[in-house]
């Protein structure tokens, strides 16, 4: 697994970042077809990305805006108190 060439690892990473040109993509694809170790490495990284992206979005607690506003310094009363 560690024998993958440095430039291919770089290409894998760039590809996972969405940062490869079509010709680089082709180069990576061809290489992956020829090397099982690299293919496994690439698949493992893709799987990792899928796992990270699978964690769901969570929301702030329902009273978040209110409690945040309560923590702000009190508003300066410029024009006197309005009733």
């Amino acid at each position, binding site marked *: 697994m560690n024998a993958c060439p440095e430039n291919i690892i770089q290409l894998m*990473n760039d590809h*996972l*970042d969405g*940062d490869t040109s079509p010709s680089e993509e082709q180069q990576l694809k061809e290489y992956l077809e020829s090397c099982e170790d690299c293919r496994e490495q690439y698949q*493992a*990284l893709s*799987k*990792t*990305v899928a*796992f*990270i*992206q*699978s*964690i*769901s*979005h*969570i*929301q*702030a*607690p329902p009273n*978040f*805006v209110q*409690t*945040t*506003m309560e*923590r*702000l*310094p009190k*508003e*300066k009363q*410029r024009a006197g108190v309005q009733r």
Partner: protein
Amino acid sequence: MDALVNKRIAKVIKGDQNAFAEIVELYQHQLYHICYRMLGNKQEAEDIAQEAFMRAYANIRTFDQNRKFSTWLYRIATNLCIDRIRKKKPDYHLDAEVRGAEGLNMYSKIANDDELPEEELMRMEVQERVQYEISRLPDKYRAAIVLKYIEELPLAEISEILDLPLGTVKTRIHRGREALRKQLSNL
């Protein structure tokens, strides 16, 4: 979106606190989510996300309205998260002996704190496990991974939020991804 936000910022600067409530309303979920994934704890995430909004409020005049507000806000929040993470892990002398544990030094203590036993890991739900592994990443990789994969931000924006050159951001994402690949290999 940004024109709308800038309008509210102008009101906040004039002293209208309600306009700031609308800004909090707009960004609360994203900001809370970033903090939660960085810190792995709901109370802390709420505390730090609120702290970030408070700082944004206090420094609203320094925000350059030609830029994206979310970038500025996320930067405040990630810095606060990183500070919090560093405070939680005090800078021990690693080779000092741990009191009450003869022969154990900080290396072994940290290793123990950091890794749960295999059988416990296997019992975790996938989501919980991924969060656990993210929270074991060194903070500098963690921030890059969270912004890239949880918030799905473009690399250029991450580089602005973390105030790092693009190349450094890429390296951190690559290393973070590689570390997670190893940590999640038994999943």
